[in-house]
């Protein structure tokens, strides 16, 4: 898997947009124009991978939603990228009858059933448009790739497969089946795009096991069907450098409920937690003229601005996993380098301007040197402008995050939770923090309390609990999520002793050099608080630990009774003894019930420490702590 999943998916999309042939490398090829029609699923898949400009470069003149009013554009081929649902099919048939476009290239995100295909066929016949339907493809792209090594299943209708939906007490079998089918379908598409058949490991007795069983069955069926198998040699293609198959670890959200509630300190996770961040796009209210006002003056105007954080943004790629103060320092550094380059260009400009007026200053500079410098400056101008734009973007984003941190005192929460999760001694009591009026929103306090409750080895006594509840109610928290956590804790206690948080924490190393940078507002704030940043040792979250055990074939009571599935084996064996004794080089971790950036970052850090290993992270949906608490509350109210 030399090419990442994201590259593979983007390549598949580009191929599709080029009428299902490989795009030519010829830069001066004749333009062919086309129209792209997608539904909301398709939109979510395409938007993190291809920007509008790239679409334009590929000849897409218009991109429209399937269920919008579309006018006939008679001599243009149309490429459809939709899910094969009833309403989509109906709309396509309607389009065929209305003769909207010249030719139709239908691409279905996941496989279409035979009956629906016949529906389209009959509509095409009645409209006498059979010749116009040029190509029909099953793309098997029913998942969204956000990063090179991270994917989620879907963004639309994610309530249907959310943690709430899976864990609600009154769930019916049919609903559960439907949810499992959706998840398995997406995972199947994922493995088809990846071009590898994994070895599946999953825990027993929960939703993850059901998913694993179904996925194994589906993969097995497909492999047996030799004629139509999607995993034949040419589909795997080049890039199959590893001779080993990847490991697919299915985890259930119920394994670890503290991590989604955790307050975090790394850049990407902070943005997800604090700002509105979907599909690599940040939207925030930008107040005009409040660049660095620590006093939090009331802004006069609020515009909503959204920024895309893409793979092309080098600063983002480098720093999305860094702790926040490091990010602030780096922004400062980038700004300084940018200013230096800008000054260089200005200096050249002034030298050029002096020519003809005053011979003195230029006599010392040779002409050829000047032209070389000038050409290099001119050619680097677009880069400089782009850099400036990115620096502005990150400055705005970081400032917004910082405002939240300051107003909610998130660093306090982070440190406290770290201590809770690593079972070190607590300096302040929980009650103090909860009753502190200007530390954080009620939601933050609820999160902190829930983490405390989850990680406590014994539940707190009744009196203590009442005290806490009273304090929480005073600050305006909603306690229904606590009910659910109680139930969950009781349930998991029966199943196993949760010793999951014996060693848990996230990587954080902040240098004492923070004191140097007195210019930067962030560091100013933090230094003013006289914080001495300790070095936290890198420790694994539960999911990372499980992955480590399974990948390295370590023996551990937690993972020893995980089930083992190998779709390539002829007989489905029920044994849980893996046949392969070597450690795996590649792994895919999938959390059923939802995941978040903190786990992802932990996995990335784990992978960095082990060269030669690749880990991909996926989840059925991506939520931040706020959304998760809402789900817990609604579960607790039942």
């Amino acid at each position: 898997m030399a090419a990442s999943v994201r590259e593979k998916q983007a390549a598949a999309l580009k191929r599709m947009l080029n009428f299902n042939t490989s795009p030519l490398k010829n830069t001066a090829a004749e333009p062919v124009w086309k129209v792209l029609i997608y539904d909301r699923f398709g939109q979510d898949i395409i938007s993190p991978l291809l920007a509008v400009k790239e679409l334009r470069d590929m000849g897409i003149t218009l991109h429209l939603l399937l269920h919008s009013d579309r006018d006939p554009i008679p001599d243009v081929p149309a490429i459809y990228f939709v899910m094969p649902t009833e309403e989509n099919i109906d709309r396509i048939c309607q389009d065929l009858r209305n003769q909207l476009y010249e030719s139709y290239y239908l691409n279905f995100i996941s496989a279409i059933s035979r009956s629906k295909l016949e529906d389209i066929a009959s509509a095409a016949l009645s409209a006498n448009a059979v010749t116009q339907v040029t190509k029909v493809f099953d793309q098997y792209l029913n998942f969204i790739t956000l990063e090179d090594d991270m994917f989620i299943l879907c963004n639309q209708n994610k309530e249907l497969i959310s943690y709430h939906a899976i864990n609600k007490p009154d769930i019916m079998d049919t609903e559960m089946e439907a949810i499992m089918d959706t998840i398995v379908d997406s995972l199947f598409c994922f493995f088809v795009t990846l071009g590898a058949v994994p070895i599946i490991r999953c825990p027993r007795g929960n939703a993850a096991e059901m998913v694993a069983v179904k996925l194994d069955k589906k993969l097995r069926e497909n492999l047996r069907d030799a004629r139509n198998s999607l995993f034949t040699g040419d589909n795997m293609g080049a890039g199959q450098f590893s001779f080993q198959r990847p490991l697919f670890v299915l985890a259930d959200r119920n394994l670890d409920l503290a991590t989604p509630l955790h307050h975090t300190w790394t850049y990407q996770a902070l943005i997800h937690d604090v700002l509105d961040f979907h599909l690599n796009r940040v939207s925030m209210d930008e107040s005009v003229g409040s660049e660095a006002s620590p006093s939090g003056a009331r802004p006069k105007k609020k515009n909503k601005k959204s920024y895309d954080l893409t793979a092309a943004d080098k600063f983002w790629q480098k720093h999305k996993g860094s702790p926040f103060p490091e990010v602030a320092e780096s922004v400062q550094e980038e700004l300084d380098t940018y200013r230096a380059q800008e000054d260089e260009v200005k200096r050249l400009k002034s030298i050029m301007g002096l020519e003809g007026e005053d011979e003195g200053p230029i006599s010392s500079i040779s002409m050829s040197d000047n032209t070389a410098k000038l050409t290099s400056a001119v050619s680097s101008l677009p880069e400089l402008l782009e850099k400036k734009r990115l620096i502005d973007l990150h400055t705005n984003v970081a400032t917004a995050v910082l405002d939240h941190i300051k107003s909610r005192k998130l660093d306090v929460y982070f440190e406290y939770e770290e201590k809770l999760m690593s079972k070190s001694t607590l300096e302040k009591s929980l009650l103090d923090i909860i009753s502190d009026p200007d530390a954080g929103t009620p939601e933050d306090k609820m999160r902190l309390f829930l983490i405390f409750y989850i990680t406590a080895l014994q539940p707190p006594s009744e009196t203590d609990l009442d005290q806490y509840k009273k304090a929480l109610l005073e600050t305006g928290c909603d306690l229904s999520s606590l009910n659910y956590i109680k139930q969950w804790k009781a349930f998991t206690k029966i199943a196993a002793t949760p010793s999951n948080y014996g060693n848990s924490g996230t990587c954080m190393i902040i240098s004492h050099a923070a004191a140097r940078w007195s210019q930067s507002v962030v560091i100013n704030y933090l230094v003013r608080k006289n914080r001495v940043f300790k070095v936290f040792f890198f420790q694994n979250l539960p999911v990372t630990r499980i992955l480590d055990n399974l990948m390295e074939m370590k023996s551990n009571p937690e993972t020893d009774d995980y089930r083992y599935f190998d779709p390539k084996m002829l007989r489905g064996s029920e044994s849980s003894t893996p046949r392969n004794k070597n450690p795996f080089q590649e792994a895919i971790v999938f959390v059923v019930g939802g995941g978040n950036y903190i786990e992802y970052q932990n996995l990335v850090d784990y992978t960095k420490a082990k060269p030669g290993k690749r880990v991909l992270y996926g989840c059925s949906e991506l939520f931040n702590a706020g959304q998760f608490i809402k789900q817990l509350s609604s579960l607790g109210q039942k």
Partner: protein
Amino acid sequence: MAVDITLLFKASVKTVKTRNKAMGVVFDLPKDEIFKKSRPNNGFSLKAKEVISNITKLKDFLLQHRKDYVNAGSLISSDLTRMTDNERDQIDQDAQIFMRTCSEAIKQLRSEAEKRVISTQIKEHRGAVLDLIEMYLKGVCKLYSEQRAIRVKRVFEQENQRLVSEMSNLVDEVRQIEGKVVEISRLQEIFAEKVLMQETEIDSIHQLVVGATENVKEGNEDIREAIQNNAGFRVWILFFLVMCSFSLLFLDWYDS
């Protein structure tokens, strides 16, 4: 990895057809549909395709002659394939005119498209199509300008070389002259030396000559004096002789 199910689709079409025949459902071909196809809007795409084909022609033309064009002054090329500068200028001019007409055509299409009252989607689509065509034209123009840049570079290089050879000639000449001047100065030095030597000699000669002149003058004086003396002496002798003869004659008379 995508799966092509077009054949499956066509099979479904056949199935549906046979099913419909079996059930006796007949689809009457809407005849006006055929006419509907030849819509007036077709004009736009035809024109656009025309512009594209023109640009492609230009691109092919440029690429075809690129090798000859660029091979300016290469020693390996045979005389047959070399282009004269006139031909190159011709190509440049033609290409420029062509590009100008193409961009005019694009502008025209754009203004036409804006004037017509049609839906926003079609307008957007046409705008984007024209953008694509413009980009294509820009790409081809870039080809042309690259070629041109190479050619201009070549011309400059040739001129550079010419200037260099001229300058080197001048340098040689100057060097020669310099050598000659050095020699002249050397000879000059020798002359000066010799002249100085001669000066002393001439001085002494001058002195001698002055002395000689003096001597001669004195000699002249002396000779004059001597002549005078001589003349005086002669007179006295003559007188004496005359006196003697008179005295003899007297004596002779006396004796007689």
